[in-house]
């Protein structure tokens, strides 16, 4: 495996915003301990702007660095801008990740999206997994999301049981 960049090592050495928020406005949890990575992200939102973010992560060095960098990037952003934050942007902010660890950056984006969905649901708004409000193609988006999760699990050598046909609910965990 390629070595981690100095930025990644810095975030492993001194992770920012570790912990939890007592009365969060949104919580997103993504991943699976079987895969070796779980990220839980708490956000505080005021006037449509993320004012605080904290994380707890079970995972490799890259997963921890991604979580830490993600919190730094989202604090101060509006919900709309936060939704536009891509996993690529998080990886770039860390000066890159080894190819085998790129999927860890997806963990960050997914956890952020899940936390925002949770926040939106509390506001009575339905945010599609694709990040669009009132998305006209929700079922397709959700199916695509499940396919992606299965691919992620498969990368870890895990078979995930076929998706259930239960109606999708907004917010919270998507796994």
């Amino acid at each position, binding site marked *: 495996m390629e070595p981690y960049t100095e930025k990644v090592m810095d975030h492993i050495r001194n992770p920012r915003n*570790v912990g939890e928020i007592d009365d969060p406005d949104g919580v997103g949890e993504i991943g699976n301990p079987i895969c*070796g990575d779980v990220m839980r992200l708490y956000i505080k939102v005021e006037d449509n702007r993320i004012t605080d973010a904290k994380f707890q992560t079970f995972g490799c060095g890259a997963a921890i660095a991604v979580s830490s960098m993600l919190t730094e990037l989202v604090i101060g952003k509006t919900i709309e801008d936060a939704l536009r934050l891509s996993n690529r942007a998080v990886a770039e902010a860390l000066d890159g990740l080894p190819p085998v660890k790129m999927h860890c950056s997806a963990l960050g984006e997914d956890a952020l999206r899940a936390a925002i969905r949770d926040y939106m649901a509390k506001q009575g708004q339905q945010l599609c997994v694709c990040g669009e409000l009132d998305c006209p193609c929700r079922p397709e988006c959700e199916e695509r999301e499940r396919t992606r999760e299965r691919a992620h699990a498969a990368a870890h050598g895990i078979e995930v049981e076929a998706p259930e046909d239960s109606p999708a609910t907004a917010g919270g965990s998507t796994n």
Partner: protein
Amino acid sequence: MAYIYFDHNATTPLDPAVLEAMMPFLHEAHGNASSFHSPGREAREAVDLARKQVASLIGAQPAEIVFTSGGTEADNHALRGVIARVKAGAGQPPHLVTSAIEHPAVLNTAQMLEQQGCAVSYLPVDEYGRVRPEDARSAINDATALVSVMLANNEVGTIQPVAAIAAIARERKAIMHTDAVQGLGRIPVDVDALGVDLLSISAHKVYGPKGIGALYIRRGTRIAPLIYGGHQERRRRGGTENVPAIVGFGRACELAGELLAESAAREARLRDRLEQGIRERIEHVRINGHPSERLPNTLNVGFTFVEGESLLMNLDIERVAVSTGSACSSGDLQPSHVLLAMGFEAEAAHGTLRFSLGRRTTEEEIATVLDVLVRVVARVRAMSPMYRDFIKGRRPAAASKA
């Protein structure tokens, strides 16, 4: 602060005496061991001496030692060489019996042979990582050409009942191979006591240079070469001999023989101290591998609620080098195949570290590593959502074994 190296199962530092023995052959003594002139003869004599030194450590005859580029080539030679000879004659596909916890050098070679039509049985292991000889007995059939079970596992250190399995293989007229790479220099290795026909070893695990190993081939064993070329190694392995590396391997084996009893006892005592310290000072840990039938220098520990690589990186920041499972699988997303075969669930298999001690490990280093480890495990657990849930009573301690 100096670096503390607890990863001797990955590789060992070159012994200064080994380097000294190699030096002339890296410089002035440059002859080709196949040449008839004086420089050639000098190289030939050095290779002959090294062959005796290697043979002596494992109770073999010098003519039974074939130098290879390392343990991986020796394993490839053993498996592919034996199966190639069977294929030449037989009607039904040849059968290979190996175990689920072999090094990738054996496992991936077995899988390649399987794709080429060879039948392969993978023996399971018990919760301590031990193959049961009776499983080998039931797996072996009339088409079984080769049985390959490692001497000691590199990840958890469990020592396999190779002699018992070899006796069964012999009864059934199958050739017996053992990958003894991780056992050499740590436990006594004797080809006759083990009753094996083929045995793989590597220099860099015994304070020798990298890039050199050997396959022991018992006289009379039917095996084809892996690498064709000149007449070197009695036509069993083509290619100009790597004289300096062979000389270093020889000297390293000589030293290993002299130091074995003392260093094994010393490393076991230090390892036990480390194990006891971890048990006493860190909660929710699990010692993996066999309690007694285990390499004296190896300690594999599971830390619940955390992932192994983040522990490794944090220990590295504190200048302590350890490994998660085997170095070969770093960069792999899969949890350790050894721990999975031992019945661990993937979640538990992710949170393990391997500490492997060496000749120069000191008591001070054990004490330092314990202090650092207590701090690092606490720090990484503080980040873990699962540990958080456990503290809040939302999650069981998860003994996390299947």
